[in-house]
């Protein structure tokens, strides 16, 4: 029997729950799904049981596809791993990314291979998906 390459992913994998499952299920398919309010038209990210902007329960999911671009709204460069799996990827850039086509949406992630020299507020990035397991994929950001 031929041995297959195993991908070892040591970092925390997002836990799905009632509110976030549509987001993470879409991520597993390499798509971005975001909750939106039918009443006030605001996007709700993170998602919840009702709209965090106006309280309406008339919320739905909008699929934004697989071509997602944005720019760094704010970020930090972490030199210390506070969670498992990050010790081999220091420094870790954690960024809040504002989507180019939907500026109402801000999504946190790592700017992969970024550092103090290459990442700043306004840095252009695009979403990529990292395969964590056979079933799960994690949205991340790379510089464009």
């Amino acid at each position: 029997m031929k041995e297959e390459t195993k991908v070892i992913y040591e970092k925390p994998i997002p836990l799905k729950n009632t509110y976030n499952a549509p987001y993470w299920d879409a991520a597993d398919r390499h798509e971005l799904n975001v909750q939106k309010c039918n009443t006030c038209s605001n996007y709700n990210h993170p998602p919840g049981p009702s709209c965090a902007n106006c309280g309406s329960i008339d919320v739905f999911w909008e699929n934004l596809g697989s071509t997602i671009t944005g720019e760094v709204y704010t970020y930090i460069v972490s030199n210390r791993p506070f969670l498992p799996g990050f010790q081999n990827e220091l420094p870790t850039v954690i960024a809040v990314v504002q989507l180019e086509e939907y500026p109402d949406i801000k999504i946190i992630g790592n700017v992969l291979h970024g550092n103090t020299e290459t990442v700043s507020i306004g840095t252009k990035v695009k979403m990529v998906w990292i395969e964590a397991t056979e079933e799960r994929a994690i949205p991340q950001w790379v510089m464009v």
Partner: protein
Amino acid sequence: MEKIREKYAIVGVGESNRSKNSGVTPLELALEAARAALADAGLEAKDIDGFMSYSEMDSCNPHQVATYLGVRPKVVKEMFGGGSSTELLIAEAIGLIETGQANTVLIFRSMNGRSGVRMGGGGFSIDALQNGFDGGSFIIPYGAGSPGQWFGLFATRHMHLNGLTQEHLGHVCTSFYEHAQRNPKAFFYGKPLTMEEYMSTAHLSSPFTKHDYCLESDEANAIIVTSTERAKDCKSVPVKILGMAAREVVSHAHYWKNIDEVAADYVAPRLYENAGVSPEDIKVASIYDCFSWVVLRQLEAYGLVPKGEVGDFVSAGNLRMDGKLPTNTAGGMLSEGYTHGMNNVLEIVRQVRREYEGTERQVKDTELAICTGWTGPDVAGAMILCK
């Protein structure tokens, strides 16, 4: 709130020993702080009919403290979470006294914050972080597991938009460390910090170096609140509560959605309206300082410095003893000790009382004092005190 102006006062403050490893339970620390506050006020334990505290599964409860002081109080109350909980519980105490449900209330915070459950990260399980936070699954998989990282996201953008630099953060740290050199009980007593040393310290997580983080200590603090009328029976100088805004919450509390607003922005107008004073009148401050940047952001939020001038203000040495607004004069949580905000309350009470008169630790003008609490960018509270 206007009708209770100066009607209530803090009449006792006390603390336990402060250390890296207390060797005792949080209950024993709390009892030590409570006894010290009672002695300070000249009250006996039986005079207290309300006991309250806040914690994060790292402490004892107020029922136990009342029990082991030998008291059968009317009210015990505990709440989860800190930062601005001292202000909130003081407001609750006032409400209870105002409505005749209690006469004199003791509020404490006790924690083995260094040897026990540490706030600084690493102390919580990953599942607890993901499930416990609203939206936790959107931050924890990206390595953002520490308050320093969350607040850093706010800090980076705010500093960028307002021309604030690493050196401005450094002025907060060096000013507070300088205060700690006058306080033999401070953790960093005997360990001054120069700007040169600060600037050459690496980031743990940008824009924060280890100096920008609050320290972690084992200790308990306690304060006693009663009516100004009843305060006449106490031996201490009462410090009156001129006004407070106990707690405000930003509408969407997730850590990165509304990064340009913080709850303190909403506390400030209500605070000054309730107290009937202006920010310009404030002469001395205790500003919640879990991180250096949090101080800069609150100076702006509370109108203590005009927006856009905060950097120049701290660079000119205005947080120091001879500055325009001596702040965290015991060293703050950056260099004195950490009880989730309460040690800063103890210090401002002592300054307003003029307990340090005749020493270099006494601030010259203490007529009006501000004390702020910051649970996070999403939750804040504050009060204005006078003699």
